[in-house]
């Protein structure tokens, strides 16, 4: 249980910027989120049509995961044993509010399955699992603020109990247009950064 695991790579999307391992890949702070994320998707040559039906949280999580896993040369056509452990503060509230708006006025009542299905935070894990054929362990946790201790402990548990070979974990939060952030990182046996609370917090705050 004392095996020390490593962080192989990490990805951030926040404030109109997308970066991988600390290097900016795309930035445009002038655009609203919907336009920014679409432009970042195009800049990364992502080509995945399901992306456009996703809600904001899933777009955020999916693009961060895709950029990171693509860089790791993960082949989406091959089954992988990568667990997904995500966390955030706002659950799916951004989409919850949209669904609530569709039912509030009985004279203008239009709830839609296409919106309702995204009123769960773990749907974004499902989206990533579909693209990368991850028939693996997955959990979504909610905390008041970023909790490096929990992510470190939980990824250690999954790896030491052989529940997965690698763990894609981190924080994906979309509260509203002005408050969103993705910070994902991949934990494995080998890598350059120690998987400890201090390093995780340092990377989160980059």
């Amino acid at each position, binding site marked *: *249980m004392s095996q020390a695991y490593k962080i192989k790579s990490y990805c951030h999307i926040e404030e109109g910027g997308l970066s991988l391992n600390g290097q900016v890949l795309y930035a445009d702070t002038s655009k609203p989120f919907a336009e920014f994320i679409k432009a970042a998707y195009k800049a990364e040559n992502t080509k995945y049509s399901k992306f456009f039906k996703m809600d904001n949280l899933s777009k955020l999580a999916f693009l961060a995961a895709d950029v990171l896993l693509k860089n790791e040369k993960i082949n989406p056509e091959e089954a992988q044993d990568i667990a*997904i452990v995500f966390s955030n*503060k*706002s*659950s799916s*509230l951004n989409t*919850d*509010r949209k*669904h*609530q708006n*569709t*039912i*509030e006025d*009985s004279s203008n*009542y239009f*709830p*839609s*399955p296409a919106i*309702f*299905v995204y*009123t*769960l*935070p*773990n*749907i974004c*894990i*499902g*989206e990533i*699992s*579909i693209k*990368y*054929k*991850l*028939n*693996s*362990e*997955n*959990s*979504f*946790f*909610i*905390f*008041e603020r970023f*909790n490096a201790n*929990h992510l470190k*402990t*939980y990824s*250690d*548990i999954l790896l*030491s*109990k052989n*529940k997965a070979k690698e763990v894609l974990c981190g924080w994906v939060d979309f509260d509203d247009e002005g408050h969103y952030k993705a910070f994902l990182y991949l934990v494995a046996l080998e890598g350059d950064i120690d998987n400890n609370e201090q390093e995780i917090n340092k990377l989160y705050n980059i």
Partner: protein
Amino acid sequence: MHKVHVSYNNIVSALGFSTDEVVKNIASGKTGLQVIDDKNIFQEAFCGALIDNQALDSAFNTLAPQKDYTRLEKMMITSLNEVVKSSGIDLNERVGLIISSTKGNIDVLEPNNPFDDSRAYLAELGQQIKSYFNFKNEAIVVSNACVSGVLAVSIAKRYIDYGVYDHVFIASGDVVSAFTLSGFHSFQALSKAPCKPYDANRIGINIGEVAASALITNDTNSLSNDAVEVLGEGSSNDANHISGPSRTGEGLYRSMQLAFKEAQITSKDVDYISAHGTATLFNDEMEAIAFNRMDLAEVPLNSLKGYFGHTLGASGLVETIVGMQSLKNQTLYKSAGFETLGVTQPLNIIEKTEQKPLQIFLKTASGFGGCNTAVLFKKVN
């Protein structure tokens, strides 16, 4: 490594406010489901299982609360209070708290709700429960669709096995709200009559509400008379579709394989399956395929959705607790609503409540996002 057990527990539901009362009602064939035609709850009549507001307020007020709590918080505090009290455990830093819910206080978004919208943040729900009981550790909130309740048991076991905690209290709950009803209604999934899991004449799902709580512990001095050992657990994603289950039952099959591997037992050792059984064609069929792939077709199986409805983030835990009572009472409870097999693969659905020697049961759950969880439990003698 010490064994991990599910011990003291409680259910607050339409069928009663204690596990014993709920199980007596199930044994006598009573259901919590009824047709509700109340525009204040939902614009259309629906069939669901609701907790009586007066009964809830009266139970909650005996705790002499010092401030206002939401309906869900009242349910969860009332339930968890029974478990904390009967366990007698000191809530020190070796004691964890897990909250399992899909939507938490989502009803505060309704315009007439007196609570501030900020109460809808799930961490706020965790904080309210933590503060009420004075837990030393921050609540770990799990929101993983309809597997949340049983996944919480897996997570508690993992934390205890890893040495972080000696005891973990789980409080799970979701309320029936216009939010959830309108969403499932838009999927055309809601049944207007009591649901019929695995039945040829199934008519869709019912939504229900419960709060269920349990103590997970490695301390053999903290075991209740219905305690069970957690033998093994596993989770796996279908990687197939976000709102429909895999047609091959892949994620559920893999979850069960992982649970059996950890438990070091085989399908032949299982005496009873507490399945998910939402009573939608796709779910029931997917489960039938997965259970057959695991050679579990002959094991007696039920869905408890015909008693509680689908209670979302609490369903996995409330169904685990009823499964514990099956082992304690050596009784298989009838799968309410079932008459004629309506899946393409054989399943041994429990058609009448009867006594039977039972040692080990399997609990499974599946949910939106493609998630699946399976956990194996063994009777403590």
